[in-house]
C-alpha cells in the first residue's frame, strides 16, 4: 500500500447501514452515495465490520447487491473475528469474486447476535480463541496471494504487549498497519515507525469533535477538548508523519469532505 501514501490517497471510512435500520432503503442509498463519492475522488473506501458490536450489513454484500464498482486499489474491507464460519466464507468469497483485495483484519467487538469464530472453525485446535493473529494466518494460508491483509495498532494499549502482538501479526502476514486515532504526536507511533520501516503505516485521524466517543473506541480516557478541531488535527498529522498515509474515521461528508482536497499537500 505504499502507493496509497505516495499518491496521497486517503483511506476514508464508511459505515454500512445497521441491521435494525428503520429506513433501510434510505440508509443504503446514503451508503452507496458515499461509496461512489470516495471512489470518484480517487480515495480508498474502507468499510467497517459491525463496529463496536453493532450488527450491520456487510460491505461485501452491499457492493454485490447494488453492483457498486470495485477498483481494487480503492476498496478495503474490515474483517473481524465475530462471524459464523459460513458467514466468513461468504464474505471472503464475495470479496474474491468482486476483486476486493485489501482486508483490515481486527479482533473486533462481539454482541449477543455476533458469534465469535471458534478455533475449530479455522483449524486452530490448540488455540484458546480466534484473534486477529489466527484470522490473519488463516487468510494468508487459505487465500494466499488473493488478499493483502493489514492490521490495527493501538498506541494506547500497554506498549510491550502491543509490540509483541504486532510482531505476531507481521509474522502472520500483515502487510500494512493502521493506527488508532492520533491527536498530535505519539511517541509509541514514533517507535512503531522505527521498528517496522518497511511496513506502510496509516495514522488514523479522528474527524469527529466527539472525543468521548473516541475514548470509548480506544478504551482509554482522553481529556475533553471543546476546542478540538479535526481538520487542524489532520493537517498536523500530515506534518508530523509525512511518511505515513492517513485513515479518516467518522468523516463528515457534508461539511468536511470538500476540505480534503487541499489538506494533504
Amino acid at each position, binding site marked *: 500500500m505504499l502507493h496509497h501514501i505516495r499518491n496521497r490517497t486517503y483511506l476514508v471510512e464508511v459505515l454500512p447501514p445497521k441491521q435494525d435500520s428503520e429506513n433501510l432503503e434510505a440508509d443504503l442509498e446514503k451508503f452507496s452515495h458515499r461509496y461512489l463519492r470516495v471512489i470518484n475522488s480517487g480515495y480508498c473506501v474502507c468499510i467497517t465490520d459491525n463496529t463496536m458490536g453493532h450488527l450491520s450489513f456487510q460491505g461485501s454484500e452491499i457492493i454485490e447487491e447494488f453492483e457498486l464498482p470495485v477498483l481494487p486499489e480503492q476498496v478495503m474491507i474490515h474483517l473481524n473475528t465475530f462471524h459464523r464460519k459460513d458467514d466468513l466464507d461468504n464474505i471472503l468469497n464475495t470479496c474474491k469474486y468482486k476483486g476486493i483485495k485489501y482486508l483490515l483484519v481486527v479482533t473486533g467487538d462481539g454482541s449477543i*447476535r455476533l458469534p465469535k469464530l471458534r478455533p475449530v472453525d479455522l483449524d486452530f485446535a490448540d488455540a484458546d480463541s480466534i484473534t486477529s493473529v489466527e484470522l490473519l494466518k488463516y487468510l494468508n494460508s487459505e487465500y494466499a496471494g488473493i488478499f493483502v491483509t493489514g492490521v490495527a495498532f493501538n498506541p494506547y494499549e500497554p506498549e510491550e504487549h502491543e509490540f509483541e502482538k504486532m510482531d505476531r501479526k507481521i509474522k502472520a502476514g500483515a502487510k500494512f498497519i493502521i493506527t488508532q486515532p492520533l491527536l498530535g504526536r505519539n511517541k509509541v507511533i514514533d517507535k512503531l515507525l522505527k521498528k517496522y520501516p518497511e511496513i506502510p503505516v496509516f495514522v488514523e485521524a479522528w474527524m469527529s469533535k466527539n472525543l468521548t466517543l473516541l475514548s470509548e473506541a480506544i478504551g482509554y480516557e482522553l481529556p475533553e477538548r471543546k476546542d478540538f478541531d479535526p481538520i487542524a488535527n489532520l493537517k498536523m498529522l500530515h506534518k508530523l508523519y509525512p511518511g505515513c498515509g492517513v485513515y479518516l474515521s467518522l468523516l463528515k461528508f457534508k461539511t468536511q469532505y470538500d476540505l480534503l482536497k487541499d489538506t494533504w499537500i
Partner: protein
Amino acid sequence: MKIVICLKQVPATNDTKIDPETKRIIREGVKAILNPFDTYAVEEAIQLRDKFGGEVIALSMGPPKAEEILKEALALGVDRAILLSDRAFGGSDTWATSYALAKAIKKISDVDLVICGKQAIDGDTAQVGPGIAAHLGWSQATYVMAIEEVSSFFIRVKRMHEDGYDICEMPFPVVITVVKDINIPRVPTLKGRLASLKKEIPIWKPKDIKVDKSKIGLDGSPTRVVKIEPPKPRHINTKKIEGSAPECARSLLRELRLRNII
C-alpha cells in the same frame, strides 16, 4: 416437514418498567427485539428444513409492531409468517397466549414440529412452549440442546438439565423448546432483508382461528399478578471479555483504565 416457530418481541433493555395498575410490562417507547432465545429456534428450524425439506412458518402474537420480528425471521430464511394481533388478545397470560398460539397452529394444519425458545427474556416464565403442547395434546421436550435424529415417525432429542441430560424419543407431532447450546444463529443477509420487505404478513384475528373469546385476553387468563416489580438495580455494568488469557488481561486492564480505577 412442516415446522412452526413461535416468536416473541421483547424489550431490548434491562430497564423494564411495570405499569402499576395492570402490572404488565410497559412496551411503549422501548426499542423492541426478537427474543434472543427465539433466534435459536429460528436457526434450528431452518437447518431442519434445509436438511429434510418442507416449510418453516413463523408465528407470533402481539401488537402490529410485532411484525418487525416476523420480518426479521423472513430475512433469516423462514418461508412465511403469521401475526396474531387484536385488542382481544391483549393482556393474555401464558395460558391464554399458548391457547391462542395452539389454535393458530391447528389452523395452519399438518404441522409436524413446533419450536420455541426456552423462554422470553422479559417474562422469563418458560411456560408458553409447554402450554402449546398441553393445548394441542402433543408430546413435548423442553430445554433441548440437540436434535439427534429425525425419522418419518419420531424425533430424538437431547435435553439439558441441571444434573446432566436426557435423551427423549417422541412421535410426531411434537413441541420442543430449545436452549442456546443447540446451534449458532445466523444473522440476516442484505438480500434476505430486502426480500423480507416485500413479503406480506397476514394478520389473524380471534375469529380467524376460532378461539373461545372467554379464553383469551385478561378474561381468559387465570394468572393473577399480586405484585410485580423489577429486580433492584445492582449498579453493575457487566462486560464479557473474550480472547486468550493474555488478551483478556490486556482488555481488562484497558477497561479498568477507562474507568479510572487504575
